[in-house]
């Protein structure tokens, strides 16, 4: 055993990760949020990777660096929402108190209420009577509360609204917890083309001709189709669909136009996408899909935020060496306890002179001493008790610390493998790594800490 191991990679140890990213690949979050041309930041990624927290932390950091920010969150954890004062679902941005910083930055936050956003669109685009008919239609109610994609569409809609109010110079958007990160981009188009679709036109035809009675004027093909639908859905349902479709008629063109407008807004130069992931295989696979999709759609990708990355201040000590050292300590302890029988165990010198526990002889500490240990401990328990408080317990503690470190280094290695797989596939993507916090974040101080870590 070398007493003084070669100083391998102190720089790596200082930066907190064993193998830091090349400087060209590091995402500069501060430069992004300080740039006045950045008007929209969209945080996307698969579920459970910390999108909402990232969006809130970026919003807070930008506000404390002097920008007037609004954060649109979709489904924040209760305590996080409370800490920002947005636990009430009223679909209106609220100013967040206790924002610090020197400039005149402001943070506003809101939680999306998709049904209400949908209702507001209806109310804004139809006359009073027609709006009331739509809102009361069971079909509309089902659609507005749970259309696969309504949440995504309404998030886009709300983003468009916030942008057109022009009250904020930076909008940070969280995206819905979709089954897949891509849903956010697909849903608005899907809803748009769906509402404009051939079928809707067909369904509207009879209602226009004369409501329920109009059905009999349909051609054969059409009646076969409505017949099949009627069989499947039941007559009343089909009529509800038709009334609903007819009532929404005036709005359809608008839906498509708005979905297209929001889509173009996302492609505009002032928009920046941040793909959020954790250093796990599935999350990074989704992130890779998203990166590819953004490129295909000409959406401006700013970079990848890799959350909950583990580091170590002692990264130059490998898992293997830490484990070997821990074993060393534990073995010497067994040998020491053997010595304890002789009676010189409690000599105060032991505490001061590490030489006595030098592992030189302990290299073959023997399977043989292990079985003898248990009876020894039970018969002379009072001796063991006194020795426990001296250097045996120090060794035990140190061995424990080394085992913890070994576990940490294995985790680090696994996270790096996953990250490297992603960066090998997408070397062009800038990455910001956010060091893991031991606990959950649910106050502004926690968000601030995340922001600090984000900015590196």
């Amino acid at each position, binding site marked *: 055993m070398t007493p003084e191991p070669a100083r391998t990679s102190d720089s790596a140890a200082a930066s907190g990760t064993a193998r830091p990213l090349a400087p060209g690949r590091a995402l500069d979050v501060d430069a992004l949020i300080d740039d006045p041309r950045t008007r929209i930041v969209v945080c996307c990624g698969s579920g459970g990777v910390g999108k909402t927290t990232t969006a809130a932390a970026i919003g807070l950091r930008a506000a404390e660096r002097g920008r007037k920010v609004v954060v649109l969150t979709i489904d924040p954890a209760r305590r996080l929402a409370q800490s920002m004062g947005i636990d009430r679902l009223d679909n209106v941005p609220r100013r967040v108190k206790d924002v610090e910083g020197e400039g005149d930055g402001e943070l506003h936050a809101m939680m999306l209420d998709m049904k209400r956003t949908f209702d507001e669109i209806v109310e804004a685009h139809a006359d009073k009577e027609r709006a009331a008919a739509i809102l009361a239609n069971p079909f509309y109610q089902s659609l507005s509360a749970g259309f696969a994609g309504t949440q995504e569409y309404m998030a886009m809609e709300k983003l468009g609204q916030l942008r057109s109010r022009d009250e904020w110079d930076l909008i940070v958007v969280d995206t819905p*917890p979709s089954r897949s990160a891509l849903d956010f981009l697909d849903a608005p188009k899907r809803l748009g083309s769906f509402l404009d679709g051939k079928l809707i036109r067909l369904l509207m035809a009879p209602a226009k001709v004369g409501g329920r009675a109009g059905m009999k004027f349909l051609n054969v093909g059409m009646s076969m189709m409505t017949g099949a639908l009627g069989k499947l859905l039941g007559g009343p349902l089909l009529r509800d669909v038709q009334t609903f479709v007819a009532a929404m008629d005036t709005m359809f063109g608008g839906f498509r136009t708005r979905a297209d407008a929001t889509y173009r807004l996302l492609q505009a130069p002032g928009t920046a996408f941040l793909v959020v992931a954790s250093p796990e295989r599935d999350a990074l696979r989704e992130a890779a899909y998203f990166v590819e999709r953004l490129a295909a759609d000409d959406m401006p990708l700013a970079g990848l935020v890799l959350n909950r990355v583990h580091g170590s*201040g002692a990264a130059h000590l490998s898992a293997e060496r830490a484990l070997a050292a821990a074993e060393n300590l534990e073995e*010497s302890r067994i040998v020491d306890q053997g010595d304890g029988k002789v009676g010189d165990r409690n000599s105060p010198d032991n505490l001061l002179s*590490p030489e006595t526990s030098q592992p030189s002889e302990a290299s073959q500490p023997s399977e043989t001493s292990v079985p003898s240990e248990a009876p020894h401990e039970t018969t002379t328990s009072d001796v063991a008790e006194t020795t426990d408080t001296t250097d045996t317990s120090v060794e035990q503690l140190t061995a424990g610390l080394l085992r913890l470190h070994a576990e940490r280094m294995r985790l680090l290695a696994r996270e790096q493998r996953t990250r490297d797989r992603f960066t090998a596939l997408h070397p062009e993507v800038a990455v910001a790594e956010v060091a893991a916090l031991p606990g959950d974040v649910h106050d502004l101080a926690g968000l601030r800490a995340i922001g600090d870590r984000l900015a590196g």
Partner: protein
Amino acid sequence: MSRLQVVSGKGGTGKTTVAAALALALATEGKRTLLVEVEGRQGIAQLFETETLPYEERKIAVAPGGGEVYALAIDPELALLDYLQMFYKLGGAGRALKKLGAIDFATTIAPGLRDVLLTGKACEAVRRKDKSGRYAYDCVVMDAPPTGRITRFLNVNDEVAGLAKIGPIHNQAQAVMRVLKSPETAVHLVTLLEEMPVQETADGIAELRSARLPVGRVIVNMVRPALLDEAELELGLERTPRTAIARSLSAAGLGGARRGGSAERLVDPLLEQAAEYAERFALERGQRDVLREFGRPLHELPLLAGGMDLAGLYELATALRKQGIA
């Protein structure tokens, strides 16, 4: 034991993995299970390292002792066509409807309708018998939507009630609800020992109970090993001077214990990691206490050191079996 086991959980908790491990665990001793996917993610194919699953029941794994796991990725559109064909012999008209976009229409605009097709297909597999009158599958495991949506998803009756008051969809919903609310079904929730997923589990259980859907087990996934006894660690850190740890590290061959020596410079980072460990451990203990209060059987699955792969899946299945889940 329930023959339909529904697995839900917050995003990122590994519910697909747990569902797959459960299907494997239940397929022991010549039993046959069906693992069903409803969200079109192809997560099962990825886990079992097979090609993309079609809308067709297909054997994907053999469990120890000769059991078999089949898998099915339910596609709501194809399920609807299936359904039309089965009950109305509407094969040709079904294709015409699809061409018109009517199938897409029907399955997307009314989420309740879509869900009743998905759950309906799973329930059909639960009840299906072969010629000898034996159940086709001993057990059906469903990789279901996440906790936030699970009650809505399963409570198809309520969802469809406002839309279809009569008619075949209504009847289908009724039939599905009878299975889902019976002891034949158990809804398990997967969580992590973290605040947000535990909170979501609490909300999920409350919602399921108020909808009278049978809550099964709570499965804590990715549990990190307890490397140190927390109390011992705390006591040790309190009593032990830094210099003693430095000497001990030095004795273990990690360099000099003097100020600035290699061993001495390890002390701070190691202590920092220990403090993080202790903090996380205390948080996890707190979350475990919260989970115990739900009064549901609690299971724990280890975090796999090497990451998740097919071998890991068998490892988790064995762990589930040992814990008496199968």
